[in-house]
């Protein structure tokens, strides 16, 4: 059990071709027993951050502290961490039992205690029948469990996971996700989880760290990150399908602030209006926050249906709105046909406004 503090971590990879700035000024406090996820697109520096915490990579500058102690210079084996790799990295020439035992052996744990712990982990993860097999003889899900077991058995202070579920098929992934959540409930070890799957991050974490290009974009609970994204990048990254984005301008009119884009004019919610930002802006609205309203409703925006997709219990409608394309999410019972004209209502309380048009356009609220 430990708190983790990342203090202004920088990481630059220098090579002949130039330098890659993989991590910029990452500062973060993780509480004891907390489950945090690092999410972001490929190449955003998630693994780099995790590997620095593990001691597999040295930061260019900055510090890593466990329980207030600076451990930046320590070897991985002196950090009391465990890590689950995306590839599982099970030792191919060892049986499952030997894989589980290896860390204990290396730390000089006596034989009886090793056997007791291996038995306990085997029971907990239901892998006891696999003990004498080699990793090659296991299915993906079984390997996953063994990899988890190998990490758990040591009772680490911090548990690091780098996309541990991404090699599993969709069904198994959901199942293992639930198991992982249950596991964290049980062991209550600090867990740092890297994924590019925002849904995994949302369902598992106490807090989510969204990263892009090596820069932390937002830290918050899944709720916060979803409903109050700090900038356009976070807004678009979190949630599937993505938040609809319409670029336009903010201008005052008749004592109110209006957002306008070709064919769309919406009043800005009072809270956001108080900031008084004008000029170029982006309007964001989640697919579930757009409703279909009867034609003629005041404020309704007319639009044409392009395509409808059934996704099980719900339906996604792709709708053309004066040159913009938006996605609307409805229950499956709402059937729309291509070419049909509909009226869209936007819930003003659920609009997101960003000042500017780039990824880093900050939220106005």
């Amino acid at each position, binding site marked *: 059990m430990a708190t983790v503090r990342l203090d202004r971590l920088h990481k630059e990879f220098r090579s002949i071709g130039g330098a890659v700035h993989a991590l910029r000024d990452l500062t973060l406090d993780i509480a004891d027993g907390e489950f945090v996820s690092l999410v972001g697109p490929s190449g955003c520096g998630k693994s780099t951050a995790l590997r620095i915490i*593990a*001691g*597999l990579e040295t930061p260019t500058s900055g510090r890593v502290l466990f329980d207030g102690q600076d451990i930046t210079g320590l*070897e*991985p*084996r002196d950090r009391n*961490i*465990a*890590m689950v*790799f995306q*590839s599982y*990295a*099970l*030792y*191919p*020439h060892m049986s499952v039992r030997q894989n589980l035992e*290896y*860390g204990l052996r*290396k*730390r000089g744990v006596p034989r009886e205690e090793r056997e007791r712990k291996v038995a306990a982990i085997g029971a907990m993860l239901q892998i006891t029948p696999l003990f004498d097999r080699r990793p090659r003889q296991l299915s993906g899900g079984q390997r996953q469990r063994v990899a988890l077991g*190998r990490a758990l058995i*040591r009772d680490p202070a911090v548990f690091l996971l780098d996309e541990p579920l991404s090699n599993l098929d969709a069904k198994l992934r959901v199942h293992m996700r639930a198991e992982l959540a249950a596991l964290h409930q049980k062991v209550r070890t600090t867990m740092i989880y890297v994924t590019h799957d925002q849904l995994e991050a949302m369902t598992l974490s106490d807090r989510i760290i969204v990263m892009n290009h090596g820069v932390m974009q937002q830290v918050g609970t899944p709720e916060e990150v979803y409903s109050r994204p700090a900038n356009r990048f976070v807004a678009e990254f979190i949630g599937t399908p993505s938040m609809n984005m319409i670029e336009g301008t903010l201008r005052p009119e008749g004592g109110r602030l209006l957002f306008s884009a070709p064919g769309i004019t919406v009043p800005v919610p009072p809270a956001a209006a108080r900031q008084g930002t004008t000029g170029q802006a982006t309007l964001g609205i989640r697919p579930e926050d757009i409703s279909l309203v009867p034609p003629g409703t005041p404020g309704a925006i007319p639009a044409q249906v392009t395509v409808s997709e059934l996704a099980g219990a719900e339906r996604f409608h792709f709708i053309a709105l004066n040159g913009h394309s938006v996605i609307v999410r409805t229950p499956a019972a709402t059937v729309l046909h291509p070419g049909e004209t509909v009226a869209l209502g936007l819930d003003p309380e659920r609009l997101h406004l960003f000042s500017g048009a780039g990824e880093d356009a900050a939220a106005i609220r």
Partner: protein
Amino acid sequence: MLRALRIYGAAALLLIFVAFPLYWMAITSLKPQTEVFRVPPTWLPERWTLEHYVELFLLTDFGRLFLNSLQVCLMSTFMALAVGILGAYALARLKVRGKEAYGRMVLLAYMFPGALLIIPLLLLFRQLGLTNSHLGLSLAYLTFAVPFVMWVMRDFFASIPIDLEEAALIDGASRLGALWDVVLPQAVPGIIATGIFAFLFAWNEYLFALILISDEALRTLPPGMMRFVSTTDTNWGLIMAASTLATLPMALAFGLIQRYLVTGLGAGGVKG
């Protein structure tokens, strides 16, 4: 079909080309002295005999030469593996400045002709008292064995997923511990294959052995057998028997480890 025929035809030609001298050597060693020079030659001995082999061990110092060679080659192979594997691992994994340039220099050293090395080496070894010593000769063989091992094993190590070592480091192993526990077991085929090649280089090497060792009692097989040719008044049956025995361990080794050779030298390029 035609294509297959052509390939098999070419393979057969190559086989005859390579294997015929070996066949002739073995057959001649088993013919009685009177049959060796018969014209036309016999394809199989009319009378099989081991007389040349008996002669070889009773009348010549073949046995000692063989043991000397074995000792030198085993020593140099083990030293080359110990040094070369560590070097190769460092080249493959550690973040060291100038690693690439160093790697290329190693390759250059490997390609450097032995004939150019031998004079400076001789002068150096004289100073160090390493001439006329099996240790000295084994060390001299490291000049090509180590670069060879490093070159092949570097690619081999590079093909082993780095995650495995990192997992071991996190599990509590040191660098060397991870190398020993996790990397080397994966690399066994490569180690066997390169080890055998390093051994063969040394086994067949003539020039260094001739120049660095003048003491009759320490002489190794290749120069020893050369002397054989003159001292025994070119008894071909005897020479063929000696050659057969000198080749036999190699043929056996190749037969036994063929499996490793294929996976071993192939694994550097293709990830299995």
